[in-house]
């Protein structure tokens, strides 16, 4: 028995749960009620959240299965075992690029929202640069420290969201919630497709299972980690609709921010709950960004072994920065996000699931 629980450079199941939850909560949490309300047109969207949550859990569990088959191998290594080295090289490279693009997206998301609500006169270029520099700094350090930061941040995040919701209860209008169960299955499925985009991120299990003390816990950890965002999305959707009504939510750019702005804590001590909300949201975005950045380096680094980590950071950062400034407006930014998620679905869900099939079929294992 080790007396220092963190001295062994391994993460436990709990860390994995928090990492998954923290990564999944990102930009989507702010916007998904709008797209969901557009598609379902009623409170019934919560069913879509459940459907897509279930879907994500199944996929996440399978990805966890794949990763835990190879508890001592990196993604590149076990992909090589399953489908030859050249193919693995292509896949891993694409995965690396995907994570790099995702960092760009999140950095820009932070820039956009901070600009719109917090720093109206600061150029978005400056906000993103400052944020990217901090992300860089975090990534340059130890990977374990980065992952444990999730453990530190996530309870705070949950606590604040809980407070926002607690004080929302008093402004909830039940009239907005009725009528229930009026949406057809087709609309619900369309809605769940939209929410699915907001659940992306749990693919981290493919790469970090290697670091787990007990790799066989990975599938369980993903599902547990997903339960937190599923629950949050469910309650947020119901609250947003309950406070604003469906037709209003369809027209709010960031419904969840508006919800936080609506909250007034009695007593006037914290009149503006949204400042707290922004703080914790930036914390989760920071966590996602650092993890994605780390994974970009991790994957690219596993193909090109000779390049040092710090070199990767210095090479990737300018690219990330330039790509993050690519979208000229909110419309382009959202469409970049959607395309990115579709790319991610292909490269980090479909391809690994295929890998799992092939591994099962050919009986390739790495845990003997």
């Amino acid at each position, binding site marked *: 028995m080790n007396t220092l629980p963190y001295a062994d450079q391994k993460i436990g199941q709990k860390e994995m749960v928090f990492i998954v939850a923290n990564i999944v909560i990102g930009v989507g949490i702010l916007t998904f009620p709008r797209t969901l309300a557009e598609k379902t047109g009623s409170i019934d969207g919560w069913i879509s959240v459940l459907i897509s949550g279930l879907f994500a859990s199944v996929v996440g569990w399978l990805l966890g299965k794949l990763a835990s088959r190879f508890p001592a191998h990196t993604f590149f290594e076990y992909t090589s075992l399953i489908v030859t080295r050249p193919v693995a090289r292509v896949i891993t490279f694409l995965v690396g690029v995907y994570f790099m693009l995702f960092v760009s997206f999140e950095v820009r998301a932070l820039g956009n929202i901070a600009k719109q609500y917090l*720093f109206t006169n600061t150029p978005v270029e400056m906000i993103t640069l400052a944020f990217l*520099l901090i992300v860089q700094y975090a990534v340059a350090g130890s990977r374990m420290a980065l992952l444990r930061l999730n453990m530190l941040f996530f309870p705070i995040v949950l606590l604040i969201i809980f407070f926002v919701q607690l004080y929302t209860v008093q402004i909830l209008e039940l009239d907005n919630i009725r009528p229930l169960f009026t949406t057809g299955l087709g609309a619900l499925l369309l809605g769940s497709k939209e929410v699915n985009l907001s659940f992306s991120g749990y693919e981290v299990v493919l790469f970090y299972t290697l670091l787990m003390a007990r790799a066989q816990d990975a599938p369980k950890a993903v599902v547990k980690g997903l339960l937190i965002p599923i629950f949050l999305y469910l309650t947020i959707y119901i609250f947003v609709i309950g406070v*604003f009504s469906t037709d209003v939510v369809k027209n709010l750019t960031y419904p969840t921010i508006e919800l936080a702005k609506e909250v007034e804590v009695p007593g006037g001590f914290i009149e503006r709950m949204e400042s707290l909300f922004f703080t914790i949201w930036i914390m989760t975005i920071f966590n996602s960004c650092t993890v994605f950045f780390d994974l970009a380096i991790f994957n690219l680094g596993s193909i090109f072994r000779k390049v040092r980590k710090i070199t990767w950071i210095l090479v990737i950062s300018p690219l990330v920065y330039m790509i993050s400034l690519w979208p000229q407006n909110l419309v382009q930014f959202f469409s970049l996000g959607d395309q990115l998620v579709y790319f991610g679905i292909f490269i980090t869900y479909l391809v690994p699931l295929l890998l799992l099939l092939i591994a099962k079929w050919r009986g390739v294992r790495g845990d003997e």
Partner: protein
Amino acid sequence: MGMNKSWVRLLTAVLSVSFLSGCWDQVQIEERGFVIGVGIDLPASKETEKQTEREAPDKPKGKRRYLVTHQFVVPGGLVSASQGGSGSQSSTSDSFQNLTSEGDSLYEISRELAVRTSRSPFYQHLKVVIVSEEVARSPNTFADVLDYFLRDPEMRRSSKVLIAKGKAKPVLEVRPKTEKLPSLYINSVAENTNQNARMIPEVPLGEVYEDMINEFSFVLPRIVAANNEVKVAGAAVFQGQGNRLIGFLGEEETEGLNFLTGNVQGGLLKTKVRDNLVIFNIKGTKRSIQTDIRDKKHLRFQVFIECEGVIAESFERLDFMEQRIIDNLQKTVAAEIERLARDAIRKAQKQMKTDVLGLGTHIKQTHPGLWKQIKEDWDHGRNLFASSDIEVKAVVYIRNGGSVNRTEIR
């Protein structure tokens, strides 16, 4: 090597200090002009319009021009008035400043204020938005004037919206004795719903947005200014189609409406027992609706109003300890509620033909299928609302007769 490294460190430190510190968006609090109230009118004359026309003939122009009054807090005035204490310069005139400007865009007007005042407008503490009757009555204008307030992320959705009977500017110019800032005074008056059933509950900007974007008609509180005080009573009725003011409900009708929508939190009801007044103090109401949807062209609604309260004042010497007397009185009060409600129904259903009673909402919630068929013909088009049948039934519970039973033995 060591030398080299320390140079790099020093350089990094210097760069970090110079680039990463400070705040791009800093605004000194002295430079902020806290706008606490906004009044929106239509301009009385065409003077300014003609002048703009002369100065910039090719500039894009809006369909309508607005006269917007911004009420700024003058912090110095607030401090001196509170510290000055007895007698010395206790004039309230310095604690606020009203600036009126004309233009066809509210944003433009707001930015133009920056050239007239040392403090640029800052809206995070905006408490009230007052829209004049004239603006609200003009077609397709009400949503236009609120667009800026909804779109700007700096605005708060909790600012209250009120409709001024007449012009909006005089409302912001009242000088109440109890408060230093007219807007805060209006803000507090509008919150007194639990004291009086003749005003409708405050409607924040966010809720107005909800009303405008939903298909239903709605009401907003009416405000009237006179003799350095304001009166928030009555309701402005907006037709959901076009979000346009179509008329006002008087104080009595508003009271009836509040009973019908279950929005009475307090207030009083006067009844007569054998020629003498007995005043009933309302403590709370509950409303429920039953619908009969068999005939689509002739829907039937039964509105049940349950109301509880105590006796506040009695000029008739009744024995409030006796069940029979309480029972009779309960019936009398119930009849009064029904009368008020019927008056409101008459006005809304027969005259205005606009559903502010929330019956459409009720159908949507309880019979969503039916609502999909009839929503285009509800309170516009074929107007099924006007041809529906609305019945009211009130039940009153008098909980007690107050601290004494009879004031004198007669």
